């Protein structure tokens, strides 16, 4: 790994954190200041664009000049990136999970599709594992096609399923690029960038899975059950994309995966990571959302 690849990982992490912030603000309908350059964009969206431009300029320069760095210097850069990332993950995954995007069943279906595609192309599962994975996935798919409001208990189980799918994705990722300065992974700078962004997103949710597991387990006591009813609106969104458009998006996801498999444009894991981030941050943006009945 060289300076440019480390910068690409850092840029991916920073852009993803800003995207989480922007998604969280947008979903909570916080009044965002309109941008300097375009009134149609928020200030935060412009900052994300600016960070992308500046960071890719820096990455391109680092890649062009490729300064020879000692192992100690590379380790120091990587430790700085990881130190910041772990602090972020601990604070926003365990202490104050304010940046987790709200999802609905349609997002969960898209995430399940991507996670299972990755899992099934890596491993051959026994029939009981297949059943255990596919039954909930089919259930969520059925719910994504209905327009009735779901009970908060069921929402909590769906959200748990979503976190398990993200954990499956996290386990498929190779986090060697984060911890080994001498790593010889054959990746492009774009792969490092996507790896950084998806890595922080997946690890954030994997850490939150531990907390959410405790939250669900606490429901054993009836006295605690009202807490999940109050908590779920912060994590689960009742708005939906119109059914037909949702099916078109799913078909589009499938087509992208098939096309990537045929052409090998991106390494499979990078394509899957990119689709996960698209599903969570951008899937519902172009559409007029409808409230559930």
């Amino acid at each position, binding site marked *: 790994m060289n300076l440019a690849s480390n910068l690409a990982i850092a840029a991916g992490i920073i852009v993803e954190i800003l995207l989480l912030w922007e998604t969280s603000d947008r979903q909570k309908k916080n009044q965002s200041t309109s941008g300097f350059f375009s009134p149609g964009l928020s200030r935060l969206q412009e900052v994300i664009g600016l960070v992308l431009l500046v960071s890719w300029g820096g990455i391109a320069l680092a890649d062009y000049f490729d300064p020879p760095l000692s192992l100690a210097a590379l380790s120091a850069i990587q430790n700085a990136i990881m130190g910041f990332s772990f602090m972020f993950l601990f604070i926003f995954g*365990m202490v104050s*999970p304010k940046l987790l995007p709200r999802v609905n069943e349609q997002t969960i279906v898209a995430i399940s599709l991507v996670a299972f595609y990755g899992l099934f192309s890596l491993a051959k599962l026994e029939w009981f594992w297949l059943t255990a994975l596919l039954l909930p996935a089919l259930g969520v798919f059925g719910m994504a096609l209905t327009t009735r409001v779901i009970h908060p208990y069921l929402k909590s189980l769906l959200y748990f399923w979503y976190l398990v799918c993200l954990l499956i994705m996290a386990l498929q990722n190779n986090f060697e690029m984060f911890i080994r300065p001498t790593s010889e992974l054959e990746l492009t700078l774009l792969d490092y960038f996507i790896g950084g962004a998806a890595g922080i997103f997946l690890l954030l949710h994997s850490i939150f899975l531990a*907390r959410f597991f*405790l*939250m669900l387990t*606490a429901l054993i006591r009836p006295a*605690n059950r009202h807490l999940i009813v*109050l*908590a779920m609106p*912060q994590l689960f969104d009742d708005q939906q994309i119109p059914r037909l458009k949702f099916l078109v998006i799913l078909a589009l996801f499938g087509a992208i995966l098939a096309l990537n498999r045929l052409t090998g444009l991106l390494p499979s894991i990078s394509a899957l990571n990119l689709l996960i981030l698209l599903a969570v941050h951008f899937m519902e943006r172009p559409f007029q959302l409808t409230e559930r009945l």
Partner: protein
Amino acid sequence: MRVKRWPRSLSELALLPDVLLWFLAALAPLMFLFSLIAGFDQAAQHRGLLADLAAHGRVVSAEINQIDFESQRGRITLFYPAENEQRELAVIRILEFYPADWLNRLEKGQTLELLCVPPGPYRHAYEAVPLQYYPAFQRHPGITRDIWAVFLFFLLVAIYRPHFLFLGFVPVTDMSVTLLSENPS
């Protein structure tokens, strides 16, 4: 008729277990996460050792050199004869995976049949498992009792007092928390 009241200091003393429970409840998410990570790490190490034993394991008769129940979750150091009249080292780690009565019967100088990873470029080189307990060792999840204890203890704390888990999602006023609002006097 005057109602008999507890002295103020005694009623405050009665609050101590509750305060301690709140303190443990605040630690619960962190300690639970710690137990998960430590458990996954131990399970991964265990699977790694099993893989090394399956791929490179060698059955040897080794003589016990030292039995240490204290350091690093307990270990037994053994030596076995190798090529060129040399003696190779083998170590049995994490003694709680083996029956206590068997461990108590072991003595220095005693010979044991081992399945051992020989020296070499292997992650678990020198590590060994008593041959008679290898099938049981294969079935074991590889997680030690202290990690299970931390996991279960903080799971129970979180079930009994889950309020810190919901902070950030539910306003404190909606949580029916009594300790902070009660006047102890």
